[in-house]
């Protein structure tokens, strides 16, 4: 009954994205894709979120924000990197002001490549993240937390 994957609340953060992936993320909420049918709510609050969905590579300005958002989320939690910039840094990888993908700062569970990532693949990535979420919850229970 209280499986966390039945009601995953999602927090979306734009680390340095060009807004291409962000628009595709918002597309998932529209009638055509409707991610609310999985019980997913796009919440604006890290305290209440289970999935941290990040677009864009990390730079020195957003590094602290990403770390803080991640630390404010209660366990169990998963991180989904959406778009090739969030996965590896993409075309900006070698830039002097880019640190690289999200995994240079916080652990990433699911990578969704693409430029921009399509809504279908974002939904696919989030649904895969749900499985990871359940595993993490089970591991938490085992530890007796």
């Amino acid at each position, binding site marked *: 009954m209280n499986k966390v994957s039945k009601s995953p609340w999602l927090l979306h953060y734009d680390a340095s994205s060009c807004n291409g992936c962000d628009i595709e993320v918002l597309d998932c909420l529209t009638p055509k894709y*409707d991610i609310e049918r999985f019980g997913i*709510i796009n919440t604006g609050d890290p*305290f209440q979120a289970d999935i941290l969905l990040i677009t864009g590579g990390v730079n020195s300005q957003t590094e602290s924000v990403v770390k803080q958002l991640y630390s404010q989320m209660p366990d169990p939690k998963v991180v989904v990197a959406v778009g090739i910039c969030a996965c590896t840094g993409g075309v900006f990888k070698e830039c002097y002001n880019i640190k690289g993908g999200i995994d240079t700062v916080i652990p990433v569970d699911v990578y969704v490549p693409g430029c921009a990532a399509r809504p279908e693949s974002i939904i696919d990535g989030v649904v895969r993240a749900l499985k990871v979420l359940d595993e993490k919850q089970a591991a938490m229970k085992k530890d007796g937390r």
Partner: protein
Amino acid sequence: MKPVIFVLAYLILAPFVGALLDGIDRIVSARMQRRKGPSLMQPFYDLGKLFSKEMIAVNNVQLLLNLSYLVILMIAGSMLFAGADLLMVLFILSTADMFLIMAASSDSSPFANMGASREMLQMMAYEPLTLLVAVGFYLTTGSFQVSDFLTRDYSAVIWMPGLLFGFMFTTAIKFRKSPFDLSTSHHAHQEMVKGITTEMSGTTLAIMNIAEYYEMILLLGIFFLFFVNSTWWSWIVAFVVCALIFFMETLWDNVSARVKWKTLLYSCWVVTLVAGGVNILILMLIK
């Protein structure tokens, strides 16, 4: 014996019925937007998840204040369902809301504090009409006792249609519906998402949600009183009308955009003055 059964039924069933209504509301909203929407049991899944999450408390007092919000709402609802004084029920209802405001302002987040001040503003908007409703019931039935309303051979709504309209208008605030959802808007594209719950998570948030379900049933109970009288079929009519009112609140939620706080205050007070005030005036002259 009867009041005891009613109170027990309220205390046990209200969160379940409230969560079911919330599930229905979310599906109906989704269908209005041509979406499929979540499953009917989604609010139960949400509550189950919130209770299972790791406990993050920003301070020691917030959980206690949220629990007070829940318990005082339960007391207010129990009094209504026990057939006690309607005026007292409404006063206790406002007291409960004060605890929510205190819970939100107990932490340092500017978003939570803004949410709390907006919640107070919303109280200012709906409180006058809520009191007029109690006065209207007194003028119509000659008593503040809820149990007395049920024994009259006419429905209160015949004498107080203006107050019913006003109450429907202002309960959009209490039901957390747009255009008046200044402190608790769900929508991610608005500037302050659920301000009042910003620092609440896991168990604390779940307790607040359960309290909201108790409040929802309490409000529907007051709507029920508008239509019920001594005949048995009036109970069925009242149930149907309550369902209809709930549907209309959902519809209004979906067809209106959020207003600014000044519009909220002015529109609620104008409706209170025109619909409520004129209704009370006529009641005082005729009855």
